[in-house]
């Protein structure tokens, strides 16, 4: 396990794959983002606590056990409390958790506190990226933000649904898969531009 073939930025890119698929609306994006934020660090902490008690050879088995347990829990909770979210994003949540298992394995060299922090940071970045992509795509594709929040998160969220502008058909490209890639590219371009502007000023 000492040599893991993927670096963490490559892994982040891998994790973006399900993220691209579910960022068509803010509700889906937030759903996946929250799941990542809760279950990523949780499995990282648990795995960190277990790791010292396992040989390197068996720790991967422990990790798989832990991830499958976490995935099954998310499935039960989602089906019970947000069946709509379950139908919309479930396959990608399962896919996502594999990325977390990889990530935890990758962090195995570091201390528990360090790897938990790293996972938390990565999850936060991912959730933020999801949120930005979701807002951009839903706004362009539908002219709304948080459409369907009431149905997915409960009645209290109904008030959050905002129609920003009325569109007859929307700019469909935003909602369709190619829109995800374009939006991601724009996001990365914006980040690079910010970075350059920052380094130029200092």
């Amino acid at each position: 396990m000492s040599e893991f073939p993927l670096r963490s930025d490559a892994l982040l890119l891998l994790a973006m794959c399900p993220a691209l698929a579910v960022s068509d609306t803010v509700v889906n994006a937030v759903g996946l983002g929250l799941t990542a934020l809760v279950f990523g660090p949780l499995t990282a902490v648990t795995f960190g606590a277990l790791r010292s008690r396992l040989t390197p050879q068996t720790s991967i088995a422990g990790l798989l056990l832990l991830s499958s347990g976490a995935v099954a829990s998310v499935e039960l909770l989602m089906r019970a409390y947000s069946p709509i979210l379950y139908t919309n994003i479930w396959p990608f949540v399962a896919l996502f958790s594999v990325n977390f298992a990889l990530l935890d394995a990758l962090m195995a060299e570091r201390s528990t506190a360090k790897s938990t922090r790293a996972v938390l940071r990565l999850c936060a970045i991912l959730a933020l990226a999801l949120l930005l992509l979701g807002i951009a795509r839903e706004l362009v594709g539908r002219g709304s933000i948080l459409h369907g929040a009431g149905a997915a998160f409960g009645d209290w969220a109904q008030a959050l649904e905002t129609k920003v502008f009325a569109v007859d058909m929307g700019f469909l490209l935003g909602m369709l898969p190619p829109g995800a890639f374009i939006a991601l590219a724009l996001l990365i371009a914006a980040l690079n531009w910010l970075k350059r502007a920052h380094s130029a000023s200092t």
Partner: protein
Amino acid sequence: MATPTEDAHRPPHDVARSAAVLATLGAALALGLYGLWQLTHERIERNRQAWIEQPLTALLAPMKYDNDVLADVITVVSPDVLGADAPASIYRARLAGEPVAAVIRTIAPDGYRGPIELLIAVDYEGVLLGVDVLRHNETPGLGDVFENREAGWLEAFRGLSLSTPPAGRWTVRKEGGAFDAFTGATITPRAIVKAVRRALEYYRAYRDRIFEADAAGEP
């Protein structure tokens, strides 16, 4: 082995401890999941029921019936008339034992992106009470406009039957039919119209057997 490996130096109790930790972890997870299942399975079952119950009762709203429609269901397989290999469910509504309406849960197999699951409600005479889409994968913004932009499109089915419009016009306008297509999407409405027509034909052909069959049996 002659060459000592790293493993050879590891005390055997390390392996035993790993096994014990793994077993404990497995047991703890199993227990935790069982607890979680206990907490959630009733809600999950309720959600599953509500998913079909809400549209079902909405479609049957204009009718008077006194039986438990959700339980009074038969399953039929009829690839030749319904046009789908998958089994279809037929829920039956009765008043004082007399049949008043049937709701056919079937699929339109030829949607643009996979099958479209439909609920088709007909009264005893074979006149449509309404059509609802349970699940679909149609292109957002083009094929799914019956959900928002043309929300009234599905309403237009109410009151129609195999004789109104006549059989030949049970398709989209583009093909000389009586039904509007969506801007940019013809396949979806055509698939739905076709599935509804087929359900009506099935109902006309087997009406008596549909209502006579025992619940959960096949006519």
